[in-house]
């Protein structure tokens, strides 16, 4: 089935089986292997991408359902020569060990920070009506959809906290 995906600002025309997940389209059809396949069931978060500015699990999405959507993968967040603030903070704070969950952590953190800046409450927010404080408890709760089997969580939380003030893609999660 003919499908147009805009990935990291570049438009791609694909002709794919409707069973192909967005994750497999990115990895196998577009050779963007930054997004990882961990559990393939929406439980680990390694496949997290942004769709129209919002983070989702790309393993639980059909590529054909995202025709004409704008997708951002970790490759669109920074490059080895030009790391984003989140990426360099993960390096600085040892926010990984094996690194397999890291792209998902970084993309998820980008989406999470956008949600936070819009004042979305979380399960651990004391108030639903006042802007939440940017505490470690908030970061942990909001990042609970990203697992790290090496358990690098302390470094991940520090990295996100440190990068938060500078990390923005200039546009917030779509309304």
């Amino acid at each position, binding site marked *: 089935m003919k499908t147009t995906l805009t990935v990291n600002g570049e438009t791609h025309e694909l002709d794919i089986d409707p*069973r192909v997940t967005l994750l497999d389209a990115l990895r196998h059809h577009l050779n963007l292997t930054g997004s990882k396949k961990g559990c393939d069931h929406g439980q680990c978060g390694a496949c997290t991408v942004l769709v129209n500015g919002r983070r989702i699990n790309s393993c639980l999405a059909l590529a054909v359902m995202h025709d004409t959507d704008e997708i951002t993968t970790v490759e669109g967040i920074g490059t080895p020569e030009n790391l984003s603030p989140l990426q360099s903070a993960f390096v600085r704070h040892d926010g990984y060990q094996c690194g397999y969950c890291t792209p998902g952590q970084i993309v998820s953190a980008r989406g999470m920070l956008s949600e936070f800046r819009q004042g979305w409450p979380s399960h651990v927010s004391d108030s639903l009506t006042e802007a939440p404080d940017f505490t470690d408890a908030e970061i942990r709760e909001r990042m609970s959809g990203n697992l790290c089997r090496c358990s690098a969580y302390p470094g991940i939380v520090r990295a996100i906290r440190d990068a938060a003030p500078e990390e923005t893609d200039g546009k917030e999660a779509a309304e």
Partner: protein
Amino acid sequence: MKPFDYIRAETPADAMRADARIIAGGTNLLDLMKLQVETPSTLVDVTRLGMTEIERAENSTRIGALVTNSDLAADPTIRQRYPMLSRALLAGASGQLRNKATTGGNLLQRTRCPYFTDISQPCNKREPGSGCRAQGGYTRLHAILGASEHCIATHPSDMAVAMRALDARVEIESNDGATRILTFDEFYNLPGDTPEKETNLAPGELIVAVHLPDPPAGRQTYRKVRDRSSYAFALVSMAAAVAVEQGRIASAAMAFGGVAHRPWRSPDAEAALVGREPSAELFDEAADILLADARGQGGNDFKIPLTRRVVKAVLTELTGA
């Protein structure tokens, strides 16, 4: 995944085909299709049909079926007037899943009973008449209320529990042009001898919205007890609204998750609270009524005392007793 025909609905009528399996967020359905628990032959994508508005009307709020769980939880009206619903949504799943999961899809999500999701096992819900291996097996997540000899599965939603406490109704359109509006108890079935028939949604029907009446009087909350503090299904959850006037309970609404095949409510337990002074003894009395017919399966026996403790904790919090 088994092959299927993919149709992108351009109009609601496209989605009301009798043979359609509807996909919206897909977070539960695609998971089950990968496991071949679900093997639809025709998948109809409804995500381009709009239905993403939250509209405030006189005496009610109408939530479009495709409003995402994230948008619903963050909506200013929901946060201010229906805080138990925001809290329930935020207690469910993860940020990524809430961004995709929809209101209609959340209502229709399937049980996480591990025997239902394992196609090598018999399951009356997946394959009617094949048996229930959960009974006598691993039952930590299973029902203590309203179960049958054919099925002891629980409904996994947090959102639906809060909506049940709020007396929400489901707006359904059908391919013959009719619209019907069902209460949650009309919409959801108990397992009985047809556990595969989870709802009264008929082929050719489409959920288009959920209606919330004006919020109940008093304070609201949602309490969820689970095996880890985030991103896990409820062992027991409770959505409640309680109003206290002149030292007595004026009204009480309580719905429970993790304990039954559908969000559970006990009108008798609520009635027992009304007109009485809040106290630990009174809350125990309400829990006695709620749990009078509760039955454990072994691995979930703990849910009976746990539900009682949740009732007492939530009512204490809401009444200040």
